[in-house]
Structure formats: C-alpha cells, structure tokens
C-alpha cells in the first residue's frame, strides 16, 4: 500500500489507509484496504473522497519484473470503489469495478449524474488516476499542482508497467 500512501500525501486532508489482515497475509484470501475505515477523506469544500479496494496476495513472476521490483509475492487488485461526493452528499462520480453479482457491467465503469444508474465503461482506473481527477476538481493540496501530478504519475508508473490488464479483466476475475 506504500504507493497509495505516497500518492495520498499530496492531498491536504486527514488520510489513513485501514486494512484488516486477520492474522497474517496469505494467498487465496481477499483483503480490503479503505480510506479512513470506509469513512472517506474530507477535502475542504470539495467534499468527501471515498476509496476502497479488494486485493489478493499472488505469486510474483520474477521474469516479469526488473531488479528493483523482485519478490516472491505481489498484490493483485480484485475490485475497487472510488467516489467523490459533495459536502451535501450528492455523488459527483463513482468509479466502480465489482466483478460479482448480476450487474450488467462487470468491467470497470463510472456512474455520473444526473443518471447515476448508467454504467459507462472506463477501462481500469488506477487509484492514482482517481487522485488526479480530484486535483482537476480543485482538491486542496499540500504541494503545488504540478508537483502533485508528477508524484502521482511516478507512483502510477510501476503499476502501469507491471499490471496484467488495463481494459477488461481476464476471464475468471
């Protein structure tokens, strides 16, 4: 979660990433991290940013990673939910990937007002990209805008380099 931790640091607001590892991390178990224990992050007058992600510990393929990113295991995303709401509680956007249930949209999508029922396909949206969207909405920052965007681009880079899918998840996920 360190890349998310570093990415959140550009925003001016109280943030902590909470996770329940329930013993120790192990394979074949889905974990969730969330922002402020699913309570979201207050971003001044902009509103509240909520974020959570499901992830699993999986074996890492050493041939797919450079020397800096070697290790026996890696985290693999299984679902995400990012949302920006106004101070009055109206949703500005909801970024979803929840490949379960009977939703017609098992692939990553966005819900936008005024018709929040529509599932607009997005491809996979990184957490860092969601943070860049917040900057576009004038979220309060701890650093200047250019530096914030640069930090997020750097944190996103490793993920973009090593992720296994970008538009639609492989069958079975």
């Amino acid at each position: 979660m360190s890349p998310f931790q570093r990415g959140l640091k550009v925003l001016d607001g109280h943030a902590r990433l909470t996770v329940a590892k329930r013993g120790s991390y192990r394979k074949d178990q889905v974990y969730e991290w969330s922002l402020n224990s699913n309570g979201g992050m207050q971003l001044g007058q902009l509103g509240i940013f909520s974020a959570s992600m499901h992830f699993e510990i999986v074996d890492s393929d050493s041939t797919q990673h450079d020397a800096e990113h070697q290790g026996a295991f890696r985290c693999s995303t299984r679902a995400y939910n990012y949302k920006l709401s106004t101070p009055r509680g109206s949703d500005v956007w909801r970024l979803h990937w929840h490949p379960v249930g009977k939703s017609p949209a098992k692939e990553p999508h966005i819900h936008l007002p005024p018709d929040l029922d529509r599932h607009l396909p997005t491809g996979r949206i990184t957490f860092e990209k969601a943070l860049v969207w917040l900057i576009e909405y004038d979220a309060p920052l701890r650093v200047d805008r250019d530096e914030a965007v640069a930090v997020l681009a750097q944190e996103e880079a490793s993920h973009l380099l090593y992720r296994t899918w970008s538009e639609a998840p492989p069958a079975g996920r």
Partner: protein
Amino acid sequence: MTRDTAPCDVEIVELSDAEASAAFDQLAQREMGISGDEFLGRWDSGEWTDADFDDVPGLVEVWMGLPLVR
C-alpha cells in the same frame, strides 16, 4: 491497532479482528441501515445473489467491506 506512519504522515493502520468487525458493522449501518450481522445473514441467504449491485443502495460499499470479517 498497528500503525505504520513512515515515511510520510498518511498512516497505514492494521485493524484488529474486533476493530474490523466494529468497522464492518458501522459500514453496514451507515450504508444500508442494518447491522453487520444482519447483512451477513442476508448475504448468506442469497438475498442479493441475483441483484445488480448498483441497483441496491449501499450494497457495493458494504460488499467492499466484506473482507473485514471474511
């Protein structure tokens, strides 16, 4: 509750089992107006098996929190 604040001031907090259970209950109460236990019972009974998650207010949020307790 275990905290990791280095190298920046955005904390990573590892919840104990009791804290995770309380967080899940709080989430279910806030998003769907039911207790965590009631959500788990209704989930296990298959109430939302055929549901479009996006059609049930709060379901995506509470489902996301399931790994807190399972």
